[in-house]
């Protein structure tokens, strides 16, 4: 695998987050029935950043926020060599009648989102669910799932790997694309 190539640098990265927050505010205006839910673990980081921006830009501070772990809902359980480590699910409210904004960093095969939607059902019947992702790898989907809000779109082959890095975790906000060397394909 090559060294990662930066496809979104810090400045445009933050502009993209800013745009996503405005798009979400444009849709919902009033956030009293809305809850923002991040998928563990990288989706939660994006969700927290977007939540702060939305609160700041919409001047609404009491937006419901939750974290969703999908480990126990994954369909690739047991087809993996080793099990995935579960994280915490922190949704201490019912989703009945809520408008859910589901957030993940990279939308790839769509399987995580599929698992997340089954997991959400166990917390009540949401009135709507919308999907936000920072990176959409649109040509690699396995399931008929698409995001409602997209940061950037990346067209890459299956063997490539996209990573979102965060300032407070990895040192800088950026999106990296790792592609295999030609002979490895």
């Amino acid at each position: 695998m090559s060294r990662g190539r930066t496809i979104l640098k810090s400045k445009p990265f933050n502009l993209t987050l800013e745009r996503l927050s405005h798009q979400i505010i444009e849709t919902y205006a009033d956030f009293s029935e809305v809850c923002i839910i991040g998928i563990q673990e990288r989706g939660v980081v994006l969700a927290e950043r977007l939540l702060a921006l939305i609160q700041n830009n919409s001047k609404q501070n009491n937006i419901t926020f939750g974290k969703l772990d999908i480990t126990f809902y994954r369909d690739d359980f047991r087809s993996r060599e080793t099990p995935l480590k579960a994280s915490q699910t922190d949704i201490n409210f019912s989703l009945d009648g809520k408008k859910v904004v589901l957030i993940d960093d990279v939308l790839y095969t769509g399987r995580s989102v599929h698992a997340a939607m089954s997991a959400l059902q166990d917390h009540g019947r949401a009135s709507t669910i919308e999907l936000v992702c920072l990176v959409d790898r649109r040509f690699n989907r396995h399931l008929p799932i698409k995001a409602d809000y997209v940061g950037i779109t990346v067209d890459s082959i299956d063997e490539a790997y996209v990573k979102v890095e965060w300032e407070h975790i990895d040192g800088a906000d950026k999106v990296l694309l790792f592609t295999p060397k030609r002979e490895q394909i």
Partner: protein
Amino acid sequence: MSTIQKLSTKHLLGIKYITEEDIHLIFETAKNFKEVINRPIKKVPSLRDVTIANLFFENSTRTKLSFELAEKRLSADVVNFSSSSSSVKKGESLLDTVNNILSMKVDMVVMRHPAPGAHFFLSQHIDANIINAGDGTHEHPTQALLDAFSMKERIGKLANKKILIVGDIMHSRVALSNIFCLQKLGAKVKVCGPPTLIPKNLAMLGVEVEYDLHKGLQWCDVANVLRIQLERQDIKYIPSLREYAQFYGIDKKLLDNLDKEIVLMHPGPINRGVELSSDAADSHHSIILQQVENGVAIRMAVLYLLASSRGGN
């Protein structure tokens, strides 16, 4: 979605055969399942393609119920078997019985058996994952795990904590599994009971013996009280239950007379008035009902982690 982890073993035959890391992994996973079983919808689909047989060659109420609930909350398919209503009565061997059940495509076996080592024997002959739900007077690993998990929840890390196990140590599989588990987590373990019910070579396990209950309670942070297992005693080890209750029964007065607060545990079923008085069992010292709740979470964690080691179909 991160750090991938795996148990070091394919079966849970006893605490003796697993590592400290395994115990921590089970605890971590159980914490997540505890959140699941406190939701309005207490179910996850993880084991929906797994079939589990509960084979109980010995009576059990709560362990069986707890395992069955854990299996159902993981969406596994469950079949139950108890020896009282089976062909074991007609003279079939253990291996034949289990092989017959496995031919019906069962992936995991939860078994309780009166013979110590029955699970070990089985694990060498069959392919399914085996979970020990009690083998004679040998081990009862999930009970020890849920005990240690409940202690940790109440008093924090167990390293250097003092745990007293009170009662019929000789006939108790809970005592042995507890000793292994607590020692692996770095706790200090003492046992307390009448001399006839303390096994001879306990010192080899690094366990001290205390015959005076009051002194023992004064020493410990947690007292795990066991039931007198009259059904396992072929001869009389104690003169009478009344005398036992007088010397080794714990009541509220005894707890109030201690210099410190201790935590009281019991694996159940309690003989009220024998090893524990009602006012002690229902006092704020007691975490007996939390133990039962944690039992389901721990068993879900064990089943989940073992199932994930099975690999794809």
